[in-house]
């Protein structure tokens, strides 16, 4: 696993736990327990009505839960504690089964950190479940116990390509297909803002304007490198801020092959080029907020 794509892997492997596959046979524990899930939800707490935006909320016939996804090495105990106060009566807004009880709270991570009295799922290469006994839903507990140790390396890609904290090569990898789309014949191109929105996909609504601006700046930085070095002569930045194909680009297998080869180089070589220079400032180990937040402030 490429170390620097950890956040996307975290999301991909967590989402897979709600799904089922025939080949290779895979039934996620949440799926097995009958849970449906939603991302990008806003819920409120009992009595005070304060808004809470857990990364994932899910509900099944025998219980409901909120999931926090993080690569941060700080404890999420306080945040998960606050999720216990979420009013379950609003689950119906998202087409989820309504319950009366407080939710099970789970933190999904790639490595073990103490999150207090909350269940933890480590979804790196194989699944490890910690503090399973804290779960209220017995059916889910059983499904998670059976699932523990399952391999997670060949799961489907999720539509989210960019996360607010994506940096350098992560941005590049996230943009590959978005940039390819620019070469559609007759394309008017895309702005950095459009690229951010497309990369965030379903998370777009839960990311604040400030974070999107920061993402746009990072996209512009990486696109500059692409335009001036890797795809020089193929891609240009127009006065209106759109990245568009130059007039010389034609839809021909050789051209497409050359563009894809250069894009691959751009997206992959940075693992080596930038890893060394960025590693000190890289935030995956908890130097800064690394999660999706509705508000502008980091919760860390």
């Amino acid at each position: 696993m490429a170390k620097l794509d950890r956040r996307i892997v975290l999301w991909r492997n967590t989402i897979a736990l709600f799904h089922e596959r025939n080949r290779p046979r895979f039934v996620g524990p949440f799926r097995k327990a009958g849970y449906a899930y939603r991302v990008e939800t806003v819920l409120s707490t009992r009595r005070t009505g304060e808004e809470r935006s857990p990364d994932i909320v899910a509900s099944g016939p025998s219980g409901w839960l909120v999931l926090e996804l993080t690569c941060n090495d700080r404890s999420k105990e306080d945040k998960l504690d606050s999720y216990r106060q979420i009013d379950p009566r609003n689950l119906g807004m998202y087409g989820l089964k309504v319950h009366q009880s407080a939710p099970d709270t789970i933190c999904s991570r790639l490595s073990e950190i103490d999150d207090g009295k909350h269940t933890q799922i480590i979804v790196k290469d194989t699944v490890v479940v910690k503090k399973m006994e804290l779960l209220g839903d017995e059916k889910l507990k059983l499904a998670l116990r059976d699932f523990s140790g399952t391999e997670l390396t060949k799961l489907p890609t999720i539509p989210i390509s960019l996360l607010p904290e994506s940096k350098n090569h992560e941005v590049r990898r996230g943009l590959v297909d978005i940039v390819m789309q620019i070469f559609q014949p007759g394309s008017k191109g895309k702005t950095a803002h459009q690229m951010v929105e497309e990369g965030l996909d379903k998370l777009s609504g839960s990311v604040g304007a400030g974070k999107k601006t920061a993402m746009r700046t990072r996209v512009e930085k990486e696109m500059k490198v692409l335009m001036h070095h890797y795809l020089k002569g193929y891609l240009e930045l127009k006065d209106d801020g759109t990245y568009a194909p130059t007039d010389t680009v034609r839809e021909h297998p050789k051209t497409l092959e050359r563009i894809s080869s250069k894009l691959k180089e751009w997206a992959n070589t940075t693992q080596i080029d930038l890893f060394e220079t960025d590693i000190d400032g890289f935030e995956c180990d908890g130097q800064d907020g690394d999660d999706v937040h509705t508000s502008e402030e980091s919760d860390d």
Partner: protein
Amino acid sequence: MGRIQTLQNLKEMLQAGFEDNEALLAQYGQTHLTQLKAYLLETNYPIDEIECPLGSWSSLGGAGWYINRGGRSPSTLFLDATRKRIWILYTILDATEADAVTDNWVRCIKGLDRCWLSRNHLLHYDGNEAWQQRGLGLKFSDGLASDEEAGRFSLKAWYGATEKIPGLADVLDTAKENFAIYSTRWQKLKEDSVTLAVEWYSNGKATINRAIDIDEVMLSISDMANRYEDALDEATNLRDDGLGAFELNFTQSIDLEAFSKTVAMGRGRMNLWLIETETEPDFRRFKGVDLHTWDRVFLDVGPDYAYLTVPGRGCVNAAPRIATIQGEDNAGRTSIFFDGVEIFG
């Protein structure tokens, strides 16, 4: 026959064609007039935003039916645009011209695609007492292999005398289980007489070989359109409700290296332009665009399966298209699943 002004006029004209063909069949043992064809098309736009491929559209009475006027070959295309997502294009052009017009129309207009019929769609009448299967077309182009090494397979079998060759039925069954079906021929019987004979193709085309009642024909074609529209709605809801992927299961093993080279150039029948982003010996991840629509797609490919993710608002018609084309090209019999349940069936 005067100018076609209404849907009723159109039906009368098509009905007369069936009757003339039946008369010719009775007298000479073969039909002479061009057979009616229908193309199921998937659209993302209303009719007023999509130009007619020949001339311009003119309404037939304002109930969602249109005819082409002016231009080359006027009054030969008849569009049933009464459904939001699926149109039916009827035509009396000959097969070569009709295919060319439809192919060109779909290629030129982003947001317009064919309907890609699954095995279950093509075998939809199986088990229905009134219908009898009369033929089958199978295809495996081995499109990832070099020209010298390609083990192509193509078969078109007309049922009827298979029992005269011992073992032939078994061979057909085996081939059917391993390769993609690209056409099926059916006939509908009423009191031992054929009332409708139709050949359905995996690219959503239907050729009416024989018919005696235009309403029966249109109802049959419309039923398939409705089934496809329902499947499309179901798939769109699945995509919109979560972050899951469609799963394609194949009967033939994929050469991952050859697949990677082919899609890097946007070459081949699959029309996918993808970049490999993760490589393992038996599993590769690709991101890129579907050149049919230029929508973004992610494809994770294993030896006999693939996971297809359609991000954003991309059209989920990519799932049956990729399954159908990849099946006929290099993957053999292909089925589409979501969370272990077969869809587009």
